[in-house]
């Protein structure tokens, strides 16, 4: 996750409190999604950004996870996400993000 985004997330968390923030991912690669999820839960694994050593413990989901899909108006989901849902490796994305959520979300 780039350093500017890490800084923004840290700032928002300080402003609103981690319990009021849900991090929603849309990346296509399970490996990258896992790193992004790790960054906002246990901290930046590359130790390069503002979240290095900072465990925000945010609740983090990928947009294709069933809990999130259920929150959408089905028409909006069809218009904005259905195509990617067909293309993505949904099972692995869900597994990677869920794993980080279980390990690091407060």
């Amino acid at each position, binding site marked *: 996750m780039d350093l500017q985004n890490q800084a923004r997330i840290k700032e928002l968390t300080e402003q609103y409190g981690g319990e009021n923030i849900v991090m929603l991912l849309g990346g296509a690669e399970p490996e990258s999604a896992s790193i992004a999820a790790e960054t906002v839960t246990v901290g930046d694994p590359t130790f390069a950004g503002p979240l290095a050593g900072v465990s925000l413990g945010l609740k983090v989901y990928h947009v294709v996870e069933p809990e999130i899909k259920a929150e959408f108006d089905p028409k909006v989901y069809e218009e904005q996400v259905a195509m990617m849902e067909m*293309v993505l490796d949904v099972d692995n994305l869900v597994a990677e993000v869920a794993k980080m959520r279980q390990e690091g979300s407060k």
Partner: protein
Amino acid sequence: MPVVKGVGYSLIHAPNILYHNGTTQTSERKKNPQSEYLAKLANHLRSYETALAYAPNQVYIGNIGMDELRSIPRPWYSSPVAKADRFGPYGEIMPEDEFYGLIKIADSFDLVRLEAEFSAAVKAKLARHRYLGNELIKRLSDGKELAQIQKLVDDQGAEGLFIAGRLVGCVRSAHEIDENLSAHVMLENLVTKASSLLPLFYLLTTAGAKPADIDYIIECSEEACGDMNQRGGGNFAKAIGELAGLVNASGSDVRGFCAGPVHAILQAASLVKSGVFKNVAVVGGGSAAKLGMNGKDHVNKNLPVLEDMLGTFALLIAADDGFNPVIRLDVVGKHNIGTGSSPQQVMTALVAEPAAKLNLKLGDIDHFSAEMQNPEITEPAGAGNVPEANYKMIAALAVMAGEIARGEILQFVEKHGLIGFAPTQGHIPSGVPALGYFRDQILAGRAKTCMLIGKGSLFLGRMTNLFDGLSLVIDKNPGLKPAETGISRDAVRQLIAEALRDMAQNLKRG
């Protein structure tokens, strides 16, 4: 309709520029000079011969076809091409020492200094180059003493030019305090200018055009040239055209991050269709900054650092000749400001909507070229197989349109997709590298309709979070209509009548 009259594609192997000037490396040197990455990097750089035998590079210059690449086992870096050639039908792969000579040739302000012995050796090599005439070779003046160059690097902030770790030249700063004219920026800009020459020379040959035929140049590389009063003032286009002897051309620069080249093609085609110009060259030089961009991932995974190639291209968009493939301008796919930035909205705007307006099913389009990044570069960096992801998205749109079943996505990808082969130089992979392939396929009658897609990430400039993209349909040329051939129907009738009259009179005389 405007046509794609010719293409030129060339690469330059630039491991030393990667090492010293790529932004991943310069950033690391600033932040963490003792890093393990920098210590290991040199051992992961490829030789020219290895880069030459790398299959995607041979595809780029047209020596290997797309289908052949598909059959070469991956990893390609472990499957060197047996008959690797420096020269191909689209262009060449130039070694770095000769390229330093080309940088000196492109230097109009005496900013580049080459060491005397090195300069003489490079001059002898370039003098044998098929496209560099005496006028250009003469610009390679006698070199300087190494001690003088070393002093410029050590004391005056000049950027060193190296071969295998040995200092062989430098690029000096062009201003005392202006960052836009610093040695670093001047090196990047001279790399862009010099590298643009190569595809332009090959383009003129493949298109059968003379330098004086070109009316206008649109330059669409990654850099911006200017000074502190106008950072992106330009004009690379005219600077390049001047060097290439395009004496009748004017020009300007077009930018749009990775979508820049397709914007440039659209503008070139529009200028031709409107009749303003007959021959417009679109040219993009290489990006020094992006060399070794994913180097850390490549080194971590014990791979060769594959982003050691400067990518370049040049295209000639010309008035309809009844033969070359046409660029359709009646329908253009574009990402509008109000389109939205989800991948589905982007791909619908760029692919599904223009196809529908042309009454085409997605399956009617023989080939698509979107982001043609070489997957061997992007996969180790966690970015996946980018062209394949694009083709899957297009196939998913075909499913949503009821054209194919969900289980047929992979077949669609196989049939309409291409294998990524382009160096990750930003503007280079974005649709354009396959235009030569499209042109060849259409001229050979193996394809009728292809789509070129450019996509750009505008958030990188921190001015907007909007996405960007454009797509163009390239079609087989239907041939000129009688009115376009310059002979009207009436004129033909008159010619026939005159011929019959002559024949009747001859018969009478006989």
